[in-house]
């Protein structure tokens, strides 16, 4: 079984995004850092093994997991039913609010208003799923490789709006003050740690770990450190 295998090996391979601030970044020492990295380190410590963080990307993170290149994903992976068919999720350890942010001069206040407009999202992300779900026929969804490209498309006027997380919204408002507004919320998204299916023992251990850091305030500290906000209630409440 995986847990004993990992303990025997003495090291756990954790997949993590490094281009998804503030959850996953490369810090100034060029080490993986961020919300996910802190959680990953705690997880390894909890299992009593060394941590080996493997940088993955949005599109290839699930292949990494499924092909056993890594043991577990702590990669801001939003919990969705489709994904749940391929991987098993732990209880949520983080959450984001997803919303539409768009050009201030245009009225984009509801899904109906987006018809005929170009809406950018990061491909294979939960934003993608959320926008696709609310979008009415005629909405032009444009999928980019990552949030940065989608953001750039918004800034350069190549799209009218993008679907993104609250952290990205904050960045856009800072980079281009006064040009864009958050028009309407899409959904709240909780993120889970993911493992390959049928690893019940491993998943149970991870769930125990998540419950522990929620209870003893360590997760709250991480949230304060990286999001400058308390752990969202919908994350704290979820089981």
């Amino acid at each position, binding site marked *: 079984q995986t847990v004993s295998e990992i303990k025997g090996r003495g090291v756990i391979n954790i997949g993590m995004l490094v281009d998804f601030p503030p959850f996953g970044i490369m810090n100034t020492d060029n080490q993986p850092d961020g919300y996910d990295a802190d959680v990953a380190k705690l997880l390894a410590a909890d299992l009593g093994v060394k941590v080996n963080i493997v940088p993955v990307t949005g599109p290839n993170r699930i*292949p990494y997991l499924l092909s056993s290149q890594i043991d577990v994903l702590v990669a801001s992976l939003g919990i969705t039913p489709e994904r749940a068919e391929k991987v098993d999720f732990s209880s949520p350890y983080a959450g984001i609010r997803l919303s539409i942010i768009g050009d201030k001069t245009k009225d984009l206040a509801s899904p109906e208003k987006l018809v005929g407009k170009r809406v950018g999202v990061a491909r*294979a992300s939960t934003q993608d799923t959320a926008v696709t779900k609310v979008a009415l026929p005629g909405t032009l969804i444009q*999928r*980019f*490789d990552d949030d940065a490209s989608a953001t*750039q498309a918004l800034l350069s006027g*190549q799209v009218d709006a993008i679907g993104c997380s609250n952290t990205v919204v904050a960045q856009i408002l800072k980079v281009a003050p006064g040009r864009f507004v958050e028009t309407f919320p899409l959904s709240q998204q909780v993120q889970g740690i993911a493992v390959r299916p049928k690893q019940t023992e491993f998943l149970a251990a991870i769930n125990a770990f998540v419950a522990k850091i929620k209870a003893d305030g360590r997760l709250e500290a991480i949230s304060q450190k990286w999001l400058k906000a308390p752990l969202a209630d919908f994350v704290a409440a979820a089981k």
Partner: protein
Amino acid sequence: MYDFNFAPVFASSDQLLRGAAVTLELSCEAMAIGLVISIGLAAAKTSKIAPLRWVVQAYIELIRNTPFLVQIFFIFFGLPSIGLRMSPDAAALLALVVNFCAYATEIIRAGIESIAVGQIEAGRALGLKPLQVFRYIILKPALRTVYPALTSQFIYLMLTSSVVSVISAGDLTAAGADVQSRTFASMEVYLVITVVYFLMSAGFSALFGAIERAAFRYPLSR
């Protein structure tokens, strides 16, 4: 062990086919436009006017020594800042043409330079003007000489076009990524689109062979 399950991939086959169609269309357009422009650039590069040669040379060096990804990025995200805004498909086409021409120009130039001087002299001795010599005497044999190189560059262009998915042009790779993001059947999706790419390049090879037989029917000496 991984369970292969192609059902979700085939369920999305029309999306993949649409992506393949976009890839084909983009490649064909870029080839056609790029060929014409490259011929012009190659003529400029073999011309007697030095500044013209330098400009073309600078363009070629710039494009050939930087990644396509960066080029397409500047075209799609950068050009709007000088007021040139275009759709992802148009930007993808432009980027492919700009990239392809840098390589094709060099290939065609080599073809032009392989034409024996005697051919040019014979044309001039008959009273043809330089442009007429180029058009009627040099061009066709030059293209024939480099035809194999040119067609592999064409295929390469089609394969490179997979990068345009970064600016959300709906090509085959983008379609594959979208299907993958919905179904998470990444292995299956990539296998299938690899096969589709292979079929398309095989198709192009066959097409180029047919064009070669039709366009270059004249026999070569020795």
